[in-house]
């Protein structure tokens, strides 16, 4: 067991490392005062620490199953349904129909519109479901089925998928990063618990009903391989992530940049002239990575390709998959979301100013403008800055920052964004909490709260208000922001600017919750509270994104 090596470094070793990481001196006992110590008091001996870790992991299952007692989107509202019915329906059709029909069958009724890996996932779990109770997944007859049996079976599947993919991935990445940053072991166990209990993810996966954690878990495996400089494996994991849920594409530009920037031999030695730099490019390795990506994709599509060949080289199915997975024909802004377009649309009516193709081009331009410069900056730093040598902690920080910045850029500026998509940029942002000091921790706990807040309108639709507040309580409690005793991590101590920002954001959120709960919006603007929510969220997301950019810029 990994935890067997959990003995703390001896004091001499510690001091040596402390000299190495002067900037991170304060990080050794981030959670020294966290309330969770009240429960882990008896586990602080090294041989018991592994128990503490498993206790926390299992405790998150308690939380998840308890959230699952709440309703999912569309429960009890028969004609509408929601993601729950969609997932159940996919389990039904993948088990009853031939592969060739999966992406064609009755598209009007929750047709399959996720990539193949989700379809296989549905197929396997559907098999299990059919074995347990045939009536839950009877073709056509089971539509809109609602009973405790199917509900908790599906809830169980989410917890299991999460436990198989997301949990191990998170533990793996955290221990990798924790080791590099010489983190206190209990701290790093607390981080694991905190990220497993991340309110947004629990509420969406175990409440609203989706399988985001699987995609995020696959992505985390890719991050782990990137940290270990195993780019072929990383790209395979990443292709898997995309094939589970297309939302993982938010990370794609940066993983491309990062792998490409790492394809130079000894670049910091030869970087005196650009010609030498270009000459040091490792074409063979790039080729290998490309082949790995291609092969993985082909293997994932194999059943579909097989049928295409059988049907005489007609690639209708593959085209249909692409059409279903990337529905470009949908509108530009879906709902009211806390991103740039929905927010500025309040003032500037884009649809009146531009035609649709123009608008599409504008969207694309701004998205690229938000993503390309930071990517270039990071690539430049990786190539030219000697501080970013292999095995340096700077490299891990810039890797996480890059993922965070790129995906936040996508979330804030691209089109067709769901409020749930915020989980994608949040994931690398969370990992950043491990890399510096308490100050970052405060900001990251704060952004966790803001992201949950931004999903509140959706959760209210799901009847998950109680669960929303409880999950926030748990998350803040674990991270030590809600500590009855002392040393609250809610508000930073040293920076006046951030103090103002964070306090103002909490005041704004509170105002929103009170007005949403007790005041009806004016008749002229029925969406006023919703807009208030998205505007508040966008403002603070924007500030946070700028801060990330600044951090990437000053990191030297």
């Amino acid at each position: 067991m990994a935890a067997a090596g959990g003995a703390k470094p001896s004091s001499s070793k510690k001091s040596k490392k402390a000299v190495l990481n002067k900037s991170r001196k304060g990080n050794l006992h981030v959670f020294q005062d966290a309330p969770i110590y009240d429960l882990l008091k008896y586990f602080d001996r090294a041989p018991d620490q592994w128990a503490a870790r498993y206790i926390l992991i299992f405790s998150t299952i308690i939380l998840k199953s308890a959230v699952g007692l709440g309703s999912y989107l569309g429960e009890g509202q028969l004609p509408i349904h929601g993601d729950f019915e969609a997932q159940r329906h996919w389990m039904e059709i993948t088990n009853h129909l031939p592969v060739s029909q999966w992406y064609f069958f009755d598209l009007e009724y929750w047709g399959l519109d996720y990539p193949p890996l989700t379809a296989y996932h549905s197929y396997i779990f559907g098999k299990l479901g059919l074995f347990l109770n045939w009536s839950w997944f009877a073709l056509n007859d089971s539509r809109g089925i609602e009973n405790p049996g199917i509900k908790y079976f599906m809830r169980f599947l989410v917890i299991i998928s999460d436990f198989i993919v997301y949990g191990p991935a998170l533990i793996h990445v955290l221990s990798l990063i924790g080791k590099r940053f010489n983190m206190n072991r209990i701290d790093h166990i607390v981080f694991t618990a905190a990220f497993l209990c991340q309110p947004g993810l629990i509420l969406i996966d175990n409440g609203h009903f989706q399988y985001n954690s699987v995609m995020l878990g696959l992505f985390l495996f890719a991050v782990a391989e990137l940290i270990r400089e195993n780019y072929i494996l990383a790209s395979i994991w990443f292709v898997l992530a995309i094939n589970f849920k297309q939302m993982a594409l938010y990370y794609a530009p940066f993983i491309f940049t990062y792998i490409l920037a790492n394809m130079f031999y000894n670049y910091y030695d030869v970087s005196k002239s650009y010609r030498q730099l270009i000459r040091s490019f490792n074409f063979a390795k790039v080729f290998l990575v490309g082949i790995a990506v291609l092969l993985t994709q082909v293997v994932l599509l194999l059943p579909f390709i097989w049928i295409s060949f059988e049907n005489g080289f007609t690639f209708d199915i593959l085209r249909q998959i692409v059409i279903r997975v990337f529905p470009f024909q949908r509108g530009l802004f879906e709902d009211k979301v806390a991103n740039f377009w929905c927010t500025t649309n309040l003032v500037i009516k884009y649809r009146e100013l531009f035609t649709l193709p123009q608008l599409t081009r504008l969207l694309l331009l701004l998205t690229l403008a938000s993503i390309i410069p930071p990517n270039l900056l990071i690539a430049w730093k990786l190539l030219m800055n000697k501080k970013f040598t292999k095995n340096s902690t700077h490299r891990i920080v810039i890797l996480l920052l890059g993922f965070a910045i790129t995906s936040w850029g996508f979330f804030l500026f691209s089109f067709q964004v769901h409020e749930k998509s915020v989980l994608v940029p949040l994931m690398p942002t969370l990992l950043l909490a491990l890399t510096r000091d308490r100050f970052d921790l405060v900001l990251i706990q704060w952004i966790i709260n803001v992201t949950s807040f931004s999903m509140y309108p959706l959760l209210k639709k799901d009847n998950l208000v109680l669960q929303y507040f409880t999950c926030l309580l748990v998350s803040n409690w674990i991270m030590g922001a809600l500590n009855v005793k002392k040393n609250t991590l809610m508000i930073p101590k040293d920076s006046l600017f951030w103090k103002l920002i964070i306090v103002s954001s909490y005041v704004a959120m509170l105002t929103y919750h009170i007005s949403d709960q007790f005041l009806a919006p004016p008749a002229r603007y029925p969406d006023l509270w919703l807009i208030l929510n998205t505007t508040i969220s966008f403002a603070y997301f924007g500030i946070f994104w700028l801060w990330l950019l600044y951090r990437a810029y000053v990191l030297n």
Partner: protein
Amino acid sequence: MAKTSTGAAMSLPREVQSKPEPKDQPSSSSPSPTDQFSLLNIWLILLAPKLLVAVGYHSTDFDVHRNWLAITHNLPLSQWYVEATSQWTLDYPPFFAYFEWFLSQLVPAPVKADGCLQIVPVGNYGLPTIYFQRATVIASELVLFVALQWFINTCQLYLSKKRAYAIAASLALSPGLMLIDHIHFQYNGMMYGILVLMLNCARLDQHLMCGFWFAVLLCFKHIYLYLAPAVFVYLLSGYCLSLKYDNKKSLVNNVVGLIQWTNCLKLGLVVASVFTVAFGPFAYYGVLPQLFSRLFPFSRGLTHAYWAPNIWAIYLFVDRVLIQVYKSVPLSRTILQRVFQFNAGLLSNPDMLNKSTRGIVGDIEFFILPTITPQITFILTLFYQIMALIPLFFQPNYKRFVGALVLCGYASFLFGWHVHEKAILIVIFPITFLVCNSKSLLAPFNLLVSCGYVSLFPLIFTPGEWIFKVTFTFMWFVIFYVAFNAVVKLPKNVGGSSGIMFHRLTQLYILGLVPLILFTSMMDLFESKYEFLRKLEFLKLMLISVYTALGIISSWNGFSWLYFVDETLW
């Protein structure tokens, strides 16, 4: 377990920990001791599961308490114990009725509109009522937290504080309370809070307050009458009598001096006034007979539909086994007939037999073994209670007192008439206060809590709560298994192979609960798929109650042994 043998070596690495903590002395470093051992954080995080399960399953007890809210709110006091629109009539003592009346005053308008306060045969309520009543349980549980915090704060030494904290945390986080109060729906948290107040008064030698709190507790819920003998003897021997024979005085003086008259008078006054406040108003209205007939209904059967894990579960199990033997082995019939002298005619009636083996409580519970009457259960309970009281009478100190409470609880739980599985808390709460005193107590304790809590599982039978109840209980057990092992006092006479053997066996037995839970859960899971499993519903419950009953009886034996034999403990 390596820990049992290397207990002494264990404490060494603790000293070189990163967290510098002074040992065996009042903490003088920056975090003040009350800060370090505060239950507030635990209370805060526990809010989360409590709130989340609020929307899940609740039992008919929820409607029972809702009905009581309605009765106490709408009717005059004289009618409380007379009203019978719903079958869930008020059958708790007066303080609980007052408490319900108080709660009913707090019902906000939307909850009222939801039907919370209607006197109807079957409650017709929605989410607002659920939220309100769940909130009252969570709020009333504060009594427990305050009591436990007081218990911690009144410990003087650092080490004893540390032990008290482990005890308090284990009770605050108890899966029993989570399952019974917050899912099933009852107000045990508050009741046991009062019990803890009483115990701590006893610990601090405040006999008068001890008597006061116990009287209050009795007026809240009369199930605690089972503990009354221990409290009575403790107060009698420790407060009202002085068992010292003074040779200088005459015999008469000694006899008079035997009784501490002022103490008797004070205690009598306190207890009497509590009972007057409770029962006085009802006596004034002349409804005491109705009240008492509600409190003590004797029309119920020996066991519940689901057998509580006690002696009678084993007894019934043996009866069911003998029935099968009788039916399938013709040779055995005459022997069985000779030995037990039962009415064979009953066994030939398949309808009756079917009903009974399914666990439906009918008039006849036993077919082959002799029938158990309430008198028998009463005598057995009293006998074992008196056994426990004799040492207490001669040695009325705190530890003996808690030990006697535990044994009284055990006796009533194991031999009582119509015992609920929920009543196991009456044993678990007091025994937890003792467990840190000696490592040898850990084995019976672990056996008791694991079997006791697992026996509560059938109470929450809905699929949604399955993961919750299992993981919560499992986590609790692991946390406090380690915690108590870390803080417990080591016995003076280390060694003794029988103790270690018992320890090992209990651990094996506890591990056996895992396949038990898995197996019964699998039966649940496949019920909709395989028709025959539905007929075996009763077998599943029987398995759980017999297995846990054996565990609880063994833990009782282990504890009794220590209570009566190991003098160093007390």
